[in-house]
């Protein structure tokens, strides 16, 4: 077990708790950079997808995990990011370097505008309102055909930065590095958010609105900022998803995608950056594992290829139910327990992470 002696307030402000932690994260980052030399181009494509999902997941995590506001409509903001990114490039012939952040900003502003009326709702009502946004977005894309290409969709051009071209099929490794760099930036911003006043006011709104007010936090404004930041990040993820999919239509960003995004962060672990990554890995790897298992089974049973429709979503659903029942803190929560077990070995107790039930809450004055 490591004991960290804190000799200044900065010890609690720093990004890493101690040198060993910094070392492990740097090692992880180095490994992520070197990944293309270790695995095939196909798997690099999958790794890129994991990162894109993780970015979108972090976006939703700001809202659900940090601020406690449910959203079942985040595919709509991915769509805003994806469409505006391509449209800025096509209609204003903006370079990617400009259109990409602008696409994020567009999604962020859209999120803030939508937040103003709907954050007055709580819990399940907010979830339903955001669900409506997701449904609405699909229809809007079809209706705004002259701009969005309707059901035939939009074609995302190759990303070009200073003459460098990034294409999923042409040079997947370079695209992977680009997405990795963007992911790194977003994780950095996210960490800053968590250690600064804005992150604390998000947590305050999540845990008790009435005492957040009593501490001087403007709850309505904080929720709006949370929506804006969340949709900004999700919009960036959506823009990358657009480039990755190369062609996208109204059906790309459908309701299922919104729900998937929510499942990703719940399975990964709510309220943590790690959770977004763990969830994205599970979600992207699941089809791979299924197809590998299927191939193995086909060889083993010597029967033709068998496909079971809905197997993926079914399995993902079962995994989700399993997590909600047995590990509400998600994969990251389980990881924490395993790590603590080895750190404290042999002194780990089974009920170490058990939380006391919360005491009576003042619901009347919400």
């Amino acid at each position, binding site marked *: 077990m490591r004991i960290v002696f804190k000799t200044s307030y900065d010890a609690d402000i720093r990004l890493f708790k101690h040198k060993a932690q910094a070392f492990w994260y740097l090692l992880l980052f180095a490994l992520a950079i070197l990944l293309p030399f270790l695995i095939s181009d196909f798997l690099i494509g999958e790794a890129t997808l994991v990162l894109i999902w993780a970015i979108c997941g972090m976006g939703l995590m700001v809202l659900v995990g940090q601020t406690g506001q449910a959203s079942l409509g985040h595919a709509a903001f991915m769509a805003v990011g994806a469409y505006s990114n391509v449209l800025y490039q096509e209609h204003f012939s903006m370079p990617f370097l400009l259109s990409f952040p602008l696409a994020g900003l567009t999604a962020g502003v859209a999120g803030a505008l939508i937040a103003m009326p709907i954050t007055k709702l709580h819990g399940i009502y907010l979830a339903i309102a955001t669900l409506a946004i997701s449904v609405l977005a699909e229809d809007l894309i079809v209706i705004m055909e002259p701009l969005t290409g309707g059901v035939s969709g939009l074609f995302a051009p190759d990303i070009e930065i200073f003459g460098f071209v990034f294409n999923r099929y042409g040079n997947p490794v370079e695209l992977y590095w680009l997405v990795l760099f963007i992911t790194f930036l977003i994780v950095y911003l996210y960490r800053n958010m968590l250690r600064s*006043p804005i992150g*604390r006011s998000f947590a305050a709104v999540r845990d008790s609105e009435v*005492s*957040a*007010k009593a*501490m001087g*936090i403007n709850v309505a404004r904080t929720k709006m900022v949370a929506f804006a930041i969340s949709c900004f990040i999700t919009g960036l993820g959506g823009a990358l998803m657009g480039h990755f999919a190369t062609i996208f239509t109204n059906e790309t960003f459908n309701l299922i995608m919104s729900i998937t995004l929510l499942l990703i962060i719940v399975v990964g672990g709510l309220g943590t950056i790690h959770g977004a990554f763990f969830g994205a890995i599970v979600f992207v790897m699941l089809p791979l594992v299924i197809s590998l298992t299927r191939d193995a089974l086909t060889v083993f049973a010597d029967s033709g290829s068998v496909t079971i429709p809905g197997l993926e979503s079914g399995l993902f659903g079962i995994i989700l139910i399993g997590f909600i029942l047995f590990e509400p803190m998600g994969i990251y929560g389980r990881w924490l327990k395993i790590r603590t077990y080895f750190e404290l070995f042999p002194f780990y107790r089974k009920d170490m992470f058990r*939380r006391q039930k919360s005491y009576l809450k003042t619901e009347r004055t919400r």
Partner: protein
Amino acid sequence: MSLLELKNVTLRFGGLVAVNDVSFSVEEGEVFALVGPNGAGKSTILNMISRLYTPAEGDILFEGKSILGAEPHDVPVLGIARTFQNIELFEQASVLQNLLVGRHTHCRSNFLTDMLFTPFVRAQERVHREAVEHVIDFLDLQPYRQKLIAGLPYGVRKVVEMGRALAVKPKLLLLDEPASGLSVEETQDVAFWIEDIKKVMGVTVLMVEHDMHLVSSVSDRVMALADGSMLSIGTPQEVQTDPAVIEAYLGSDDGTESGEAA
């Protein structure tokens, strides 16, 4: 000029008159206690001062200015901090983070500078951390600094909530039953702290409390309420011996309760 002044305040919930024509003033530097049976309207008065409720009639003045136009989140900016009867801490955050939220009104950064974590934000964090450390020292919360609220015992939560209100650096501190559910020793600690809050920090305290022992040992003046109306106001001794107060608590000699008669 009084620090806080309530003028003929009335609040109704539908047909129920929760607070009926109540007037009192809290002077700077005193500990003022509100007592009364359950449902007397004590917490409701605190909720009106922190602007969670708006009175139907009357006015509430803080430092001579009406605060009825203020939103709940403006109240701590004016210099009024509070605790809650049923503990409203941020459960999934550490004690330190909870106390730092108390410094929110003193934060001058916005979400953009926060996310970029500019040198200004870093310097600001250090300043707030130091302010919070003073509160931690004052309330002996050192062992719990990094602990999540969700795992803390009830007594410690009560103290953390008081600390969070103190971190605001208020002029007026509203304590809603600071000693409810605490052991005798813990209640004594609370009594010492309230004394120190008054004498060392120079903060005026308005508290709601049932424990008459605590009330009479720390408060300068007491107001007794029953069914939303004022019964008596004065020193703890005067209020405790007031026949109207005794009647409200114990019933009158002829066996009819004043509450039912009203």
